[in-house]
């Protein structure tokens, strides 16, 4: 066993690669984390961050040739699931994994209590231990308070303290001292004003001798908290080094992979007539603060941002699936109050919403395609006291043929279709109502490449017939392909509007991360 010194990195990963089917999600990536430092890991969706973390957690097996040392000791790969614990690693995910109705001490000691089996629990000792931990990491709360009474930012703090406590206990058993804490986007559900307290806990974890791998989308957090940073792009290390050597712009350039966003050749601006616009004024609600925008007939307006920026909440709020605090929507001549809108009222007003989670929110997988398509138009086929089922079926068949659903057989259960075809069915379900505003959420999530183009064609054809489309998406390439205008959200507000030649994949990505590059237009 090699000698461990203070200079030995707590984690050293070399030649990590991972192939999924034809794509290389991770390509010869190396990562070194020194003990007692916070190491930032940044990158776009699909850059390989989560694949890397899942290899460390033993969820994925890396391709042969990968090497891993923990605290100077080589470890055989792939790791068995759960093996990371005995190696002194702990993971805290975006979902902190706490039971809200149980107390702080119960949540903190749940692992230790679960292993105890028959021996009685000495609650007084548990509480004393808990108090000491809370004091050490500066979390001000009562051990007996239910977790649901904690402030939102205190919950990830508690999850971190629990991870450190459990790791320490395991390290004690194996006679080692140093551990590694992996934080996977712990701040994405928090408002920025409270992130500072979480950072304080992370600092104390660092002081306690742990190495910390901090995964985040947010460059401000990376710059404020980390000593070193690694940027992944397309499965490779795009850059790595001491954080203070990078500027914000450097990091964005590394993440996005382009220097100055090139302008696209053809400006695609739709003519705008004020009287036909769909206008939203002052939309506010959880995660969204006073948003105004308008969509013209025939226009496809894109909306994007990072996770937690609030852009994804617009769709549910426009149709009343998520309560808005205030806001008005004007459709042609009449105005709707968004704080009281219901899905039925929105549909009646000509607003249709195609949710991103197809099988949870969009349609019922075990029912047939015809039944799913027919749901919003049942009234049309109910004449003389009978639902004309054959007419309904042939209507569904016509819709399915029109939009190229494969196989074009409406009597199949929807879940028997591929993701792309399910999405076409869902679009057909709403497009048959000829809405004036179509709100799409991640319209090509889980959709194969061929169907993607067909779905784009459906959306474009709808817009060409004079419909307005609002496309909420984190897929920048898709927005650049579809939209003539894109709104960028940061921290609950629309901070930027890109139009015409500015609408490129790279430019959208730059704006989402929020650098202040001079406008190209």
């Amino acid at each position: 066993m090699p000698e461990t010194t203070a200079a030995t990195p707590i984690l050293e990963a070399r030649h990590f690669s991972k192939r999924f089917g034809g794509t290389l999600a991770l390509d010869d990536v190396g990562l070194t984390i020194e003990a007692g430092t916070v190491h930032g890991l940044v990158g776009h969706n699909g850059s390989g961050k989560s694949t890397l973390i899942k290899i460390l957690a033993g969820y994925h097996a890396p391709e042969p040739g990968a090497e891993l040392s923990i605290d100077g000791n080589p470890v055989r790969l792939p790791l068995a699931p759960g093996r990371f614990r005995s190696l002194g690693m702990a993971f805290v995910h975006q979902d902190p994994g706490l039971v809200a109705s149980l107390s702080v001490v119960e949540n903190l000691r749940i692992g230790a209590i679960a292993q105890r089996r028959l021996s009685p629990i000495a609650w007084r000792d548990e509480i004393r231990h808990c108090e000491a931990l809370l004091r050490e990491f500066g979390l001000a709360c009562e051990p007996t308070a239910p977790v649901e009474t904690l402030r939102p930012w205190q919950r990830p703090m508690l999850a971190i303290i629990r991870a450190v406590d459990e790791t320490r206990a395991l390290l004690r058993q194996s006679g080692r001292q140093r551990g590694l804490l992996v934080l996977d986007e712990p701040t994405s559900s928090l408002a920025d004003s409270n992130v500072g307290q979480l950072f304080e806990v992370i600092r104390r974890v660092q002081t306690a001798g742990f190495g910390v791998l901090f995964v985040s989308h947010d460059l401000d957090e990376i710059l404020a908290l980390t000593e070193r940073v690694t940027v992944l792009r397309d499965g490779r290390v795009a850059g790595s080094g001491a954080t203070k050597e990078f500027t914000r712009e450097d990091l964005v350039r590394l993440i996005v992979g382009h220097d100055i966003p090139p302008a696209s050749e053809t400006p695609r601006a739709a003519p705008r007539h004020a009287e036909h616009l769909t206008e939203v004024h002052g939309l506010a609600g959880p995660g969204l603060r006073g948003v105004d925008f308008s969509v013209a007939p025939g226009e496809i307006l894109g909306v994007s941002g990072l996770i937690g920026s609030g852009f994804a909440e617009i769709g549910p709020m426009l149709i009343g699936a998520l309560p808005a605090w205030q806001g008005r929507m004007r459709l042609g001549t009449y105005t709707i109050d968004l704080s009281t809108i219901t899905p039925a009222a929105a549909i009646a007003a000509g607003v249709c919403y195609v949710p991103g989670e197809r099988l949870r929110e969009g349609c019922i997988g075990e029912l047939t395609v015809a039944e799913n398509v027919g749901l919003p138009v049942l009234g049309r086929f109910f004449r003389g006291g009978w639902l004309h089922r054959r007419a309904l079926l042939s209507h569904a068949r016509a819709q399915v043929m029109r939009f190229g659903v494969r196989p074009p057989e409406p009597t199949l259960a929807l879940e028997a279709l591929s993701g792309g075809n399910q999405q076409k069915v869902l679009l057909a379900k709403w497009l048959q109502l000829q809405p004036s505003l179509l709100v799409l959420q991640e319209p090509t999530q889980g959709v194969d490449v061929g169907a993607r183009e067909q779905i784009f064609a459906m959306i474009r054809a709808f817009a060409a017939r004079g419909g307005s489309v609002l496309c909420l998406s984190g897929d920048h390439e898709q927005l650049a392909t579809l939209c003539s205008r894109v709104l960028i959200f940061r921290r609950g507000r629309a901070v930027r509007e890109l139009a015409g030649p500015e609408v490129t994949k790279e430019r959208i990505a730059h704006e989402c991360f929020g650098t202040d590059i001079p406008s190209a237009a």
Partner: protein
Amino acid sequence: MNASGPTSPPLPETAAVAAPTRRSALAQFCHRYALLFAWAVTIAIFAAVEPESFLQVQNFTSIFNSQAVLVVLTCSLVTTLTSSEYDLSAASVLSLSAMLIAVLNAQLGVPVGWAILAALAAGIFVGTVNGLLIVVVGIESIIATLGVGSFVSGITLWVSHSNLISGISNTLVRLVIVPQFFGISLGFVYALGIATALWYFLTYTPLGRQLLFVGRGRRVARLSGLPVGRLRFGALVAGSFLAAIAGVLYAGTSASADPNSGDSFMLPAFAAAFLGSTTIVPGRFNAWGSFAAVYFLVTGIYGLSLMGIQVFIQNLFYGGALVIAVALSILVRRSETREPDIAKEGN
């Protein structure tokens, strides 16, 4: 990359899905009518074993006539189960309804027509209470109706002083159980009519279709603009109303009311509803499937009792049928979908 959708060109994809469809046409047919075959086989077996006592026209008419109550109670459960609510109070409503007729008509001398109206109104009232607790307050239906059911049973025992009350007007008895033509009583005709109405409602009205969506995915239904709360409320009221009708038929069948009579209908009705959901329209609670399931189960019990097997067989049969029916429907569903999605649904 997405892992779920095949990236193959459209043509092979079509072939891949279309082929199993054709192959499964026969399987689908067998699946739809499996219970009817099983029923026929049961009859054939008993006919072979007990040719003298079983194969009597009188036996069949008696089976048909006596089970009208169970058919209607099962229809009540099909209504609530379609909206994904468990109504455990249905059997208690049956007892209350029968007992109200007995007390009002036999003891207080109220004309039987008014007594029936009071019984039906009581059913609607209990359904409204269920609706308020489940839809407005938000209690899980299985808990709310367990409590309401016990409460209603208490009222039934109270108004009857825990006694069997007999002497219900002969008018009702004649209108329900006395054989009218070919040994068939009107009670069976009512049950047939109610099953037909339920079939019409679930198959041929937009409301029935909407209720199905509410039951399968409340969130999907809401986002599709359906009035989810009103539909659930309506299903609960309709369910209790049907249970009250079953109580009226029960009062007519026995010309008396026993405060505990409803309890013995609870499990058979659930067994028939779940067994019924594996046939005729497999995978859905449906009227004719339940109708067939009631008579399949009763035929089995009747035949076994003719062979001299004791009363406990009823409990074994109904309990076993309930569990097997639910297990079968889960297994069939798992084999139809490409991957076992039990774990997926848990999340």
